[in-house]
């Protein structure tokens, strides 16, 4: 019975992988995809930074045990993955290399290079390779040169590498310290980093964290000064609130002040009090922090990228729900090897696959009846597990944070005289909810 049971679980997982990932990756017509089907190489957890809010920093060994992060194994597994994709004539829409700090790891550089080589001559190739980086490589000129060579190569072979700069800004520096406390980011570092960002059209993605939230107005001005100095457009900044449990009521209040400031700054400093331009920017283009509550959605049930990706923990070829939830008990299963090649899949927690890939954030317990369920960026499953013990149970403080965010956006739009026009700029499937919540918030305020 046990053998048959396992066989059946494997069959469900394999069927899902084929339908959800392999078939789209093989397809020539990417438009038929309901939404992006990407591939994340969860490379490792090695990182010179000790970011206060970072899950790899806090829970790294549980998410990715160090004993499965040997460089030779990682490289060998990368070769197997690429061989499998080539053999099956498939290419994910995009690759993402996720690690603590990819560019200070020789093996990760090599894995990215291998990916470029593997698809260089292919008719079917990924559209891009994304690499989030803390810009640790900027401290080493020879590494900068190597990164640039890799980026040049990526463009030559038609799979451009896009970096995203994990820099939290001068005024939030203590949130993102180096583990080696003798290393500091100074003005010289930042000028080098912003110059590099300008050259390669790289945006910043600072995290809005509870600690030092009171500094964010100054931090914002600092970012914009740097952008101006280096010729980077004002909007090349992806803001995301850290949805960890530790937000205090006072910090949430400060967060609200920053949201209010950000909208006003955009309205006055960027768009010279042009309501239409401001609203179009906020709801359709602009800073993720403001926009993410109102995203139209593109077939996904979650507003994070969870359902867009196959997340592969490279060290043991484990398919995991995401890099934030790669705890042992949530591993869907592992790709199995025969004669050094990927050949099949062995399930572990395959029961969780349909739940993760089909879920809608607004269906989570408590969200079901929540007033802002259609306007909420929703909790992070990994953070929810770490705080509540359940992937799907929202964190009350994060609920408060998101309520305050939505309410502040509405109140600020009202304060600036933008609220009446706002609805027209909101994606159609969010308008009704926006109207409902606005009426509720503004009537309560008045």
């Amino acid at each position: 019975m046990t053998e048959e049971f396992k066989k059946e679980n494997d069959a469900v997982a394999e069927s899902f992988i084929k339908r959800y990932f392999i078939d789209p990756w093989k397809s020539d017509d990417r438009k038929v995809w309901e939404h992006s089907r990407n591939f994340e190489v969860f490379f490792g957890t090695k990182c010179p930074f000790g970011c206060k809010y970072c899950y790899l920093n806090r829970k790294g060994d549980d998410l990715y045990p160090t004993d499965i992060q040997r460089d030779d194994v990682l490289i060998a597994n990368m070769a197997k993955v690429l061989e499998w994709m080539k053999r099956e004539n498939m290419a994910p829409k995009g690759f993402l290399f996720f690690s603590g700090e990819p560019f200070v790891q020789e093996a990760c550089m090599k894995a990215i290079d291998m990916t470029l080589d593997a698809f260089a001559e292919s008719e079917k190739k990924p559209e891009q390779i994304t690499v989030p980086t803390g810009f640790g490589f900027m401290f080493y000129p020879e590494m900068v040169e190597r990164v640039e060579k890799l980026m040049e190569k990526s463009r030559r072979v038609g799979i451009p590498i896009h970096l995203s700069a994990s820099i939290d800004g001068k005024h939030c520096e203590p949130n993102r310290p180096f583990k080696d406390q003798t290393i500091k980011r100074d003005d010289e570092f930042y000028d080098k980093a912003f110059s590099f960002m300008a050259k390669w059209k790289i945006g910043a993605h600072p995290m809005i964290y509870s600690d030092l939230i009171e500094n964010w107005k100054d931090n914002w001005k600092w970012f914009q000064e740097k952008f101006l100095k280096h010729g980077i457009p004002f909007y090349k900044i992806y803001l995301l609130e850290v949805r960890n449990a530790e937000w205090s009521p006072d910090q949430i209040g400060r967060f609200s002040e920053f949201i209010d400031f950000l909208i006003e700054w955009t309205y006055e400093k960027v768009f010279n009090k042009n309501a239409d331009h401001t609203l179009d920017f906020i709801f359709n283009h602009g800073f993720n922090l403001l926009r993410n509550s109102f995203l139209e959605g593109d077939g996904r049930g979650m507003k994070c990228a969870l359902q867009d990706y196959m997340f592969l923990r490279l060290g043991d070829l484990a398919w995991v729900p995401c890099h934030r939830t790669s705890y042992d008990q949530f591993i869907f299963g592992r790709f199995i090897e025969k004669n050094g090649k990927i050949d099949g899949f062995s399930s572990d927690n395959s029961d969780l696959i349909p739940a993760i890939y089909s879920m809608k954030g607004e269906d989570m317990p408590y969200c079901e009846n929540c007033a802002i369920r259609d306007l909420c960026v929703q909790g992070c499953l990994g953070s929810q597990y770490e705080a509540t013990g359940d992937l799907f149970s929202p964190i009350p403080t994060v609920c408060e944070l998101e309520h305050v965010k939505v309410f502040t956006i509405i109140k600020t739009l009202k304060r600036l005289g933008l609220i009446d026009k706002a609805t027209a700029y909101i994606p159609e499937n969010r308008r009704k909810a926006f109207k409902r919540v606005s009426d509720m918030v503004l009537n309560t305020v008045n």
Partner: protein
Amino acid sequence: MQFTGLEIMVAGTCPLNCSYCYIPKTPGMDRIHRDVLVSLEDESVFKRAFNLAGGGIENIGFWGTEPAIVMDVLTDKIPTMKRIFPLLRHISFSTSGIAADPIIPFVKAASRSGINVNIQVSLDGPDFISDVNRFSGAADIVPNNVKKIVSALKDIQAKLVINWKPTLTLQNMKEMDDSKIREYFDFFKRVNTEIISANKNPNIRIAEHSAAPTPMLPGKYTALDGVAFAEFIRRVHATGNRTAHTIKMIDFFRRTAEFKNDKKRMMCGAGNSFMAVGGRGFICHRSFFFDDDDYVDAAIAGTDEWLVAKLNRKTVEMLRKWYMPDPDDKGDIERYLHVMEGFHRFNKLAVSNIEAATLELAMVGQVDREFLDDPVYLRLFALFMSTASNCPFENILNTSSANVMPFSMIRFHGNGAFREVIKTIR
């Protein structure tokens, strides 16, 4: 949240070793039992229960293994329970029916304190089942003991309800042809008639419908197991009888009007209306023992017996960290209650998870293909499963989330069993 119920661990060892028991027997259980006994005698378990669940308890259930072996201690502790939980009106326990003598004085004492008692007696049917699953002679001994209890309690003023808890393994179901199914139901009819005749007290009632057979859970069920279960239900229905699932389905429709906003009435109250308490808090009695390292090691070593897909150290560690709240940590209790309240109160996620899993299983031929073609049928199935057959503890052990039901349960019910039950309702 105000708890009204408790499940208290009162015993850690058992004289029996029933074939389907969810508690594998390991050598260290004698030590666990001694610890449990101390916690009853020094009353620390009741104090922990108060810290975890508050003083508003109206119902207490005795769980662990066989409570009959500690009935003398429990009888002595009735005043303590009444003192700590002044609203206590009801005590229940589940027994294998191996002995009547320890139970009789307990029920009398409870009655004198104004406490009603419910006794669930594990009896699986005639000798060809009970004697095989439980112990030799069970089919005669257990009903005789119940008769003895009933006869001895002709004067109690409080209410006593006795119900049967028949559990069938899949093998039992497969082996039961039409005549054996008739024999099964005839057996309970005869036993009920005899006990009802022996009963001279209007305060004592035998729950006759409780003879409906329930399947052994959890299980690593395959599609073929589901087909066998469906065939068993079909045969039971053909004899004009009902299974526990049939009864649940009738209840499901009866409650339809109210259940949408009150899922928890359809489910057990684990972590919601009741708290389970041993050395610390537990989801329910089924998770007792999981806080003991030696026990877990021994049980994992014989893991096939536990019929849980993901039973390993990591899962147990997760269970301990998140689902065994510390009685002295209010924050931990609040967190635990938040998760369990979410599980019990809300249903959209459970329904959508079950629907998604059922569709995946249907696509690979592991449940009825009808689910792919009929969204209403799929929804009805998911609603039924999410309320009437949804066990948070089993979900956690198998999928690591209370909110995700394992494939096993869906295969078991989705290969004709649900269709058979629906047919009967129609």
